[in-house]
């Protein structure tokens, strides 16, 4: 009996890690936008939903398959983000952070409302790509290929992004441009452009997560609002603005949630907030954040 339970536990840990991959992708986007631009983007969940819908529509009406969508959709969603930043967020850039939160919250309501209106609320289904169908029997569980792909792909994208921002010259410009805009402007670097592009990139990650999610979750207008507040909590736990922290916390919280689903499923949507309270009380700047 005991070894069956242990196997069960392994299965839960792995499944938790898969969910954590989504959390990592989404919270990474939020962390970049907050860490570099100090914008609290509450529309991240709606843009994730938008990504899934664009993938669905592209397949349905334009015949664009999953692999192409992985490239095209993040770019499209990124462009939407760029428009948002340029025309809506920039005018209030100098106001309190609170206002960017409220503005993006409003945008999220609009996007979600519009999709509910157009596509109903029942959800649409997106098939798993042929190449990734089937799965492998591990000693403790059956692992579908697509789920394995989720872990691989998102870990690659997350750590690639982390490397780019923290270790390369491009990343250095970016950090400098957002930390000390006047100075960089004086050096002849177009800071507003950097800001816009960074926002676009952070949002594109949400679009990417949306495409990844489409085949496993039902594509529905409320998929973003359900996940948003959890992802937000993850960013706070990791330390707002800590790029690496958000990735690790995302994966870690997926595992914590997975364990909760095993021992006390009713609390699975709440456990993250419990962790958040504890972390904020003990380490106010989050697990990986720098104390101010």
């Amino acid at each position, binding site marked *: 009996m005991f070894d069956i339970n242990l196997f069960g536990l392994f299965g839960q840990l792995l499944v938790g890690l898969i969910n954590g991959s989504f959390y990592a992708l989404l919270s990474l986007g939020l962390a970049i936008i907050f860490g570099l631009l100090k914008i609290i983007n509450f529309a991240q969940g709606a843009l994730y939903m938008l990504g899934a819908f664009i993938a669905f529509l592209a397949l349905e009406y334009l015949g664009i398959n999953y692999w192409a969508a992985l490239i095209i959709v993040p770019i499209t969603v990124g462009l939407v983000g760029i428009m948002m930043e340029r025309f809506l967020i920039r005018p209030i850039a100098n106001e309190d952070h609170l206002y960017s939160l409220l503005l993006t919250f409003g945008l999220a309501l609009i996007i979600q409302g519009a999709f509910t*209106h157009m596509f109903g*609320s029942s959800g*649409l*289904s997106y098939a798993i790509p042929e190449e990734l169908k089937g799965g492998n029997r591990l000693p403790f569980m059956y692992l579908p290929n*697509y789920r394995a792909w989720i872990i691989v792909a998102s870990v690659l994208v997350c750590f690639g992004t982390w490397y780019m921002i923290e270790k390369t010259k491009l990343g250095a410009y970016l950090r400098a441009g957002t930390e000390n805009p006047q100075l960089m402007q004086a050096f002849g670097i177009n800071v507003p452009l950097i800001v816009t592009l960074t926002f676009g990139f952070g949002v594109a990650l949400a679009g990417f997560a949306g495409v990844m999610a489409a085949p496993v979750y*039902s594509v529905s207008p409320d998929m973003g609002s359900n996940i948003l507040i959890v992802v937000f909590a993850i960013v706070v736990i990791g330390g707002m603005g800590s790029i690496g922290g958000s990735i690790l916390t995302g994966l870690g919280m997926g595992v914590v949630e997975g364990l909760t689903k095993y021992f006390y499923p009713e609390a699975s949507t709440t456990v993250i907030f419990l962790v958040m309270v504890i972390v904020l009380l003990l380490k106010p700047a989050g697990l990986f954040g720098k104390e101010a």
Partner: protein
Amino acid sequence: MKNLNKTIVSSMVAGIMAASLSTAAVAESDGKVKLGILADMGGVYADICGRGCVTAAEMAIEDFGGKALGQPIELVTADSQLKPDIASSIARQWVEADGVDAIGGLVSSAVSGAVSKVNLNAKKLTMISGSASNTFTTKSCNPFNVHWTYNVVALANGTVKPMVQAGKKKWFFITADYSFGHALEGVASKVINENGGEVVGSIRAPLGTTDFSSYVLQAQASGADVVALANAGNDTVNALKTATEFGLTEMMDVAGLLVFTQNAQAMDPSVAGGMRLTTGFYWDMDDKARDWSQRFQERHGSIPSMIHAGVYSATTHYLKSVEASGTEEAEVVIKKMKATKPEDFFSRNAELRADGRMVHDMLSVEIKKAGERKDKNDIYKVIKVIPGNEAFSPMLPQCNFS
């Protein structure tokens, strides 16, 4: 200043008197039939009972000739947002201030319960078409409740019983963690135990869970013959999708206990094909149903769910009874409704029992595989008709309001 105070006080008194007069006037019968439809316009059940429920009620009124008791029938509609507090406040305003005589539509048990409480106080009819819980004709029954279409008992008897009898003895539940899920699990467990089966485990998943993989793994480890999904809407679609992905469907049967046509359409036929379920209505069941569904589809844009059909049927029966009894007073009309047998394309061998339960033939259907479908609306194969008295449980003596 003194003058000002005087004016304020006198206008206050006048205001209060006017207000008390205006509220007092409403409770009386006004000889006009006014119907309220409360639906979910933008939430998770919007496709199942949203605008479609309004359309169905409009059709019923038009088909009835648009007039009752010699006056035009009025229809008001609102969005419950699936929240009991919103529903309760709308219902209260309707029956207390706006002269609404009966409230229909009503999806989600929480909403129906809240409205039923308001209507009992105001002595107005509650015509539930969308909710599944059997509480409205058992634990919280009252003389003004009318429950159309289906309930959890019919679902359990229709879907679970034949499977247990066919030798599927061990069951595992993935249950939506709210009253509807609990009720469905409870009723289904009872059916399983009575027929010699056993429940080997159950999991309560929060409402609106997106990822069911953890629960599917636990179901897999349980060694059950059947995994029952005691949830609805997107939860069912998501759970089934994940079950297939993790190979659960190859090891065990998966039974969706409540599946609406819209959900069945959203499921991948290669996944859902062959699954049996219970429904109160299927658009393609016969000519009468097809005729009405055709008309509905032309106006609404998609095929009707059993709830849409139920709203039409309940509204029609209500209007007939109003006309026959010559008044819209609820206490009189409900007697008439219970005394006459409802009959239309939806109600087969039907009667409205004294406890408010509308008993009619239910259908056991199988979801068609991709190869069997002519088009996207061709989703069910009717396996058998379940007579009403087998599907629904007998009336409780304390709920006999004859």
